[in-house]
């Protein structure tokens, strides 16, 4: 009896390992596949929990062998149905994500982008500033502050929940990156153009 059981245990281990590996990929379709593998792993585990295989647990059935435990089987059926339904939903979501974002990748979230912007600012402050070039360090600093604020406000808008006109939000967050990159360019422009800037979805980028 240990033979098949051991194989099943190994199968559970492999399914879980592969599933978690796939879950951590950036491509959504791989995430979905990872979830399916995990679901299978969990279902096999549940089946294993019922103990050794036996004769069918039917009323009126007589057999020499001990009966199989019907409870985990019932649970596995339920779990399979749930996993199936949720997988369909995930696929739909991945598809919608592809339609809306034009890509199958999981993008950096707001927090990541904020941390990124803050780090860029720190780096630029720490190294590479040469006062001999005649630039006012204070101005330089505020310029960066400003660039970062602008970046944040872009992120916030992109993030803003309900009642938001969705047109043009695609790629808006990513534009924030470009802005931080080119931050030393047009600092003055940015201070005044903030109001209109928002409406056009970063159209004045790089001005």
């Amino acid at each position, binding site marked *: 009896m240990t033979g098949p059981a051991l194989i099943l245990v190994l199968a559970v281990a492999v399914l879980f390992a592969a599933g978690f590996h796939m879950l951590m990929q950036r491509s959504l379709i791989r995430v979905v596949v990872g979830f399916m593998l995990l679901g299978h792993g969990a279902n096999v585990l549940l089946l294993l*929990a019922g103990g050794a295989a036996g004769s069918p647990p039917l009323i009126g059935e007589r057999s020499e062998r001990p009966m199989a435990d019907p409870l985990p089987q019932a649970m596995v059926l339920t779990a399979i149905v749930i996993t199936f339904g949720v997988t369909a939903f995930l696929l739909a979501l991945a598809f919608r994500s592809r339609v809306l974002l034009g890509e199958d990748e999981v993008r950096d*979230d707001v927090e990541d982008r904020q941390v990124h912007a803050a780090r860029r600012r720190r780096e630029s402050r720490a190294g590479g500033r040469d006062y001999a070039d005649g630039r006012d360090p204070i101005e330089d600093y505020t310029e960066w502050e400003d660039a970062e604020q602008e970046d944040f406000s872009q992120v916030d808008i992109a993030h803003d929940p309900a009642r938001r006109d969705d047109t043009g939000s695609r790629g808006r967050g990513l534009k924030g990156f470009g802005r931080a990159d080119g931050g030393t360019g047009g600092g003055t422009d940015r201070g005044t153009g903030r109001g209109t800037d928002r409406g056009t979805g970063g159209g004045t980028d790089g001005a």
Partner: protein
Amino acid sequence: MNVLVPLPFVLPLLGAALTMISRRRETWLRVLAPLTVTAALAAAGGLMAAVARDGVIAVQIGGWTAPLGITLVADRLSALLLVVSIGVLLAIMLHAVAEGAGGLGGHEPGVFYPAYLTLTAGVALIFLAGDLFNLFVAFEIMLASSYVLMTLTPTAERVQAGMTYTVVSLMSSILFIAAIGLTYAATGSVNFADLSLRVAELPEGTRTALGLLFLVVFGIKGAIAPMHLWLPDSYPTALTRVTAVFAALLTKAAIYALIRVETLLFPRDQLSWIMLVLAAATMLIGTLGALTHDDIHRIFSFILVGHIGYMLFGLGLFSVAGLTGAVLYLVHHIVVQGALFLVSDLMQGRTGETSLRRLGGLARMSSFIAVLFFIPAMSVSGVPPTSGFIAKLALFQAGLGEDRFLAYAVTGVAVLVSLLTLMAMMRIWTLGFWRPRPKEAGEPPAASSYTRASTRLMGTVTAVLVVGGLVIALVAGPLASWSSLAAADLLDPSAYRGAVLDGGSP
């Protein structure tokens, strides 16, 4: 009275089916859905009265006897939480009805109402479930409808956040099945009452391992510190009233499940210190996160994470006093967190902004919103005489009553975190309400897309929820004695066991 037990779960499910059939008739939906939830609330209230009279009530669905069949159990804890959660669900649904009546039909009412009712059914079943697997199914019902609600009117950000949310929840659900499988393999049962007997025979190591596995499962679902990362990313992107439901109930349902599973099944000594440490970490990380953020929805989401720590603290003490505090905190937080998000919806509706950088002058614009924000903000910070103060007081007393260094230390952290919460709330108050409107702010939406009546109705609903938070403080005496009885039942499950295994009639 047994027929009352499944009703809070069955009625919303029926309502979901009916609303799905009539999804094209919006007026129908707006009448039918709140009526269903009201009926469920009445059933839950009746159930609470019945539990007060008869003690634990168990129902064996389909007449299969206890350890084999599906058991629904209503005890003091579940009856109390049922009433509170369905009440909050009703308030938020009325808010949605008010919003929809204002002609803002863009949020797919034909999807919203059925999904919302299914969510209600799932929440009710979580509180009533008498075995692990049914608990899992209940969570799936709740989460599956929450996935739909989360991605309602899908925008790019919402889909991305919804994906994060869905994948993380699913992963915890997979771990949940795995934990159930392992528990069944170890004990041969999934029924809570039966398990509480059988786990006693397990080796200590197995019990601790299973307990930790469940801690991870519900830790992910309930946003406990190192596993909370998904929450502040995904919650703020949904429609605000959806976020209000999620913040009020989803994490709290997970905490309820954690309380149920860990008290009934597992040894306390090893888990206690882990939980206390996690509680302190959750409190600190959540509230400090709230202090650094700029978007009010994100701030409230971090506050939510921080305050999960308080409930975990109460559970981690594993004493009647601690659990009483945890139950009180659950009740208080369900109401107050829902109110906070509804108020933030009003703030956003009035100014068109959610960023503290551009909010301002709200106190001048609408003193009504200012008062509505101020009360739950004080409550969540634990300022007397609000419900937050009472819940926190119970927890602090429990923490100091324990003669352990760790309990003292975590109580200290909890006091500090109360102050930090107050600071976060004052930040919103000074920046959003008191200071004059900053220049960066765009023009406030002069004539909002809502009609006057619907704005007034939304304000009224929010006010009702805010007043609900105050009522908790008013009835603190009876509530505390009810909670301590519930806590005593949790630590000594003999009544629970008796009702399920012996007295349960079909």
